[in-house]
């Protein structure tokens, strides 16, 4: 009897868990989109999958927009919990006839080359990593994240009243360190005496930091307690914890990748998202699919999206930084003109 009771209790608990997670499951599956013609797009997400309200969602938005104009269908897949099946995801998408196959995230960088060589007739794209010297049919979609983060630093330093701002990085990888470098440089450009607290949620090699809101909240809370009033969350899915910490301590936060003011879906958190450092993954993905449809895809090279192509930038949703728009535009122009060179690696 006890056994039956336990089994039922267990199944209920599991059923509850399952229904709590619409994002990774039901949302991430299924073919959607328009006509039967058009490209069959394979989209392989980074850790976190659909519903991260950030990076992966942005890629999906780009695919959706491309389907709107070109027709076609999309098949989304997410890696398993330890992301050991990345190569398998790409292989199976290519195997099932999806073309182009878009890998979201630099983590695919070490497997995409091998898979692409097995499927020379399929076009691959990889977001945030390079296609140079990888394979002739891989296009890298890269972003000058340091430039966008520089503007984030400018906004934070201009808006800060305490002269103390924070940076929460998801995982201490070179990619996120570029965010840090830009942010710190931007803040110091406005106020050379500003204190910038920098902390990462997890060390290199441990990717939990991109998907751990609880630890994001703890880290950010520590920064607010130490006097910061604005914290930049370059931490993927963990950013939500940073927003919660900001809401709890009356501070403000800067979102990343997507316009998180729009995507966060919680009015109390919306109020603290001063701006977001946009990485227009959606534009890049849409443009890539456009070139695929035109037949003008050039593999083996990179498409770099920076301030000059509006591939990165700040969001103005909520109107919190409308008053400093001229300052932001000023710095933007200086970077585009080459008067300011934004560092790509932290100085310390």
């Amino acid at each position, binding site marked *: 009897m006890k*056994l039956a009771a*336990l*089994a039922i209790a*267990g*199944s209920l608990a*599991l*059923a509850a868990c*399952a*229904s709590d*997670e619409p994002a*990774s*499951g*039901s949302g*991430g*599956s*299924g*073919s959607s989109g328009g006509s039967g013609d058009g490209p069959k797009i394979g989209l392989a997400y980074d850790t976190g999958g659909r519903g991260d309200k950030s990076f992966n969602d942005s890629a999906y938005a780009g695919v959706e927009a491309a389907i709107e104009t070109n027709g076609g269908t999309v*098949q*989304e*897949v*997410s890696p*398993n*919990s*330890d*992301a*050991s*099946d990345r190569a*398998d*995801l790409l*292989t*199976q*998408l290519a*195997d*099932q006839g999806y073309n182009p196959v878009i890998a979201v995230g*630099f*983590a695919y*960088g*070490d497997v995409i080359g091998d898979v692409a060589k*097995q499927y020379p007739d399929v076009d691959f794209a990889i977001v*945030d*990593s390079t296609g140079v010297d990888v394979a002739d049919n891989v296009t890298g979609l890269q972003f000058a994240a340091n430039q966008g983060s520089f503007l984030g630093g400018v906004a934070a330093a201009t808006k800060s009243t305490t002269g103390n701002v924070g940076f929460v990085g998801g*995982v*201490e*990888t*070179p*990619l996120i360190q570029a965010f840090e470098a830009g942010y710190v440089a931007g803040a110091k450009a406005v106020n050379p005496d500003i204190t910038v607290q920098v902390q990462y949620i997890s*060390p*290199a*090699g*441990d*990717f939990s930091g991109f998907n751990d809101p609880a630890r994001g909240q703890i880290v950010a809370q520590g920064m607010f307690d130490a006097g910061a009033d604005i914290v930049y969350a370059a931490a993927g899915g963990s950013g939500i914890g940073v927003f919660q910490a900001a809401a709890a301590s009356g501070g403000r936060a800067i979102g990343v990748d997507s316009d998180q003011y729009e995507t966060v879906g919680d009015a109390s958190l919306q109020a603290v998202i001063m701006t977001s450092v946009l990485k227009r993954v959606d534009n890049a993905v849409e443009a890539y699919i456009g070139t695929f449809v035109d037949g003008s895809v050039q593999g083996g090279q990179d498409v770099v999206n920076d301030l000059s192509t509006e591939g990165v930038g700040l969001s103005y949703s909520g109107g919190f930084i409308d008053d400093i728009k001229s300052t932001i535009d000023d710095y933007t122009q200086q970077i585009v003109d080459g008067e300011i060179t934004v560092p*790509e*690696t932290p100085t310390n």
Partner: protein
Amino acid sequence: MSVLRRTGQALLAPLLAVAIALVISGVVMAAIGVDPLRALSVMTDFGDTPSQQVTAIVVILNRAVPLFLAGLAVAVAFRMGLFNIGVEGQYRMATVVAAGVGASVTLPGPLHVLLIVVVAMGVAAIWAGIVGVLKVTRGVSEVISSIMLNFIALGLASFLLTGPLRGSEPGASIVTTKEIPESGWFPSLNGLLGALGLANPPRQLYGFLLVAVVVGVVVAVLLKRTRFGFDLRATGLSASAASASGVDAKRMVITTMLISGAVAGLIGLPDLLGSDHNYGTQFTSGLGFLGIAIALLGRNNPVGIAVAAVLFAFLDRSSVPLQIASIPSSVVTIIQGTIVLAVVIANEVARRIARRQAESGTAVAPPATGDGSSGEPGTGPPTGPAQSTSTAGRTDPTGSAQ
């Protein structure tokens, strides 16, 4: 008769568990609007062409090898009543150091591989040995110390990777150690597939599979057929009874942790020697924790662990085709979770049945405690020396002694 009964009892719990898990998973799938039978058919569909089918099998086996080693590492300690949660940290430390050492030397093929294997086993054994030393000298619970050493290992591995052992270009998105020269690669078994008349898939079947089999046999013999294994199991069943009969408990704790660690050191090697050839930020993590589930499912028995590892690998592989068939891949997570949950319950039920039989005196069935898979010390009257769980200092595998 007794053999038959014992086999029946050994099989009862896992079979019951898998049956319960399948039923629960089916109900859950139906509840979230997925046809369980369709999901099952997608999961068991390995593709149309022979090449696809062989690839699927290779993917499963390649995944199963590290899982098996992880389960084995956990199980060795389990059998002694030690809960080694530190397997995760042990294999990460071992892999990064072994990758560094392997990349810095050039030796003739077999020696090179041997060196990497020995370094990996040694590093992980030392890392696990710290837990053992802390336990016997300071009485630190191995659960606490091994969890905490995991964090230290992760940080230290990350430091080694981004600092002294960094081999990738500055600015590269994925930080890795230097590539191990080709003499240090473990040859794949694809030639064997060809000899068996199977299609040669683009994926390489890890040669480390053979090492894993050998290690499994060695561990099985060690546990079942040696004086050391007897002492180990006896200590696991009752520490006080074992030490009363002359087993040096402290030595046993340290030796067991060293062996568990040495096996843990092998976990990262199939990937390291078979495909990646370097340790990097993308190296598969979490295998140590999965190992706990595998050991539990396999009832700490090497054969059982092998079956459990293949089962988990099969489920893992199916997450991709499930997604392509528009079925949420969380189905896989649900099945894996329910299996582990069901195993814990089933082991407990089997243990009670065994005890009831022992109490009624119809058979001298061996109690199923001490395999670490169930933990309910001190309930019911002790029926024999092996059941006296109230002894102070007995370490309960679930960490909830007394």
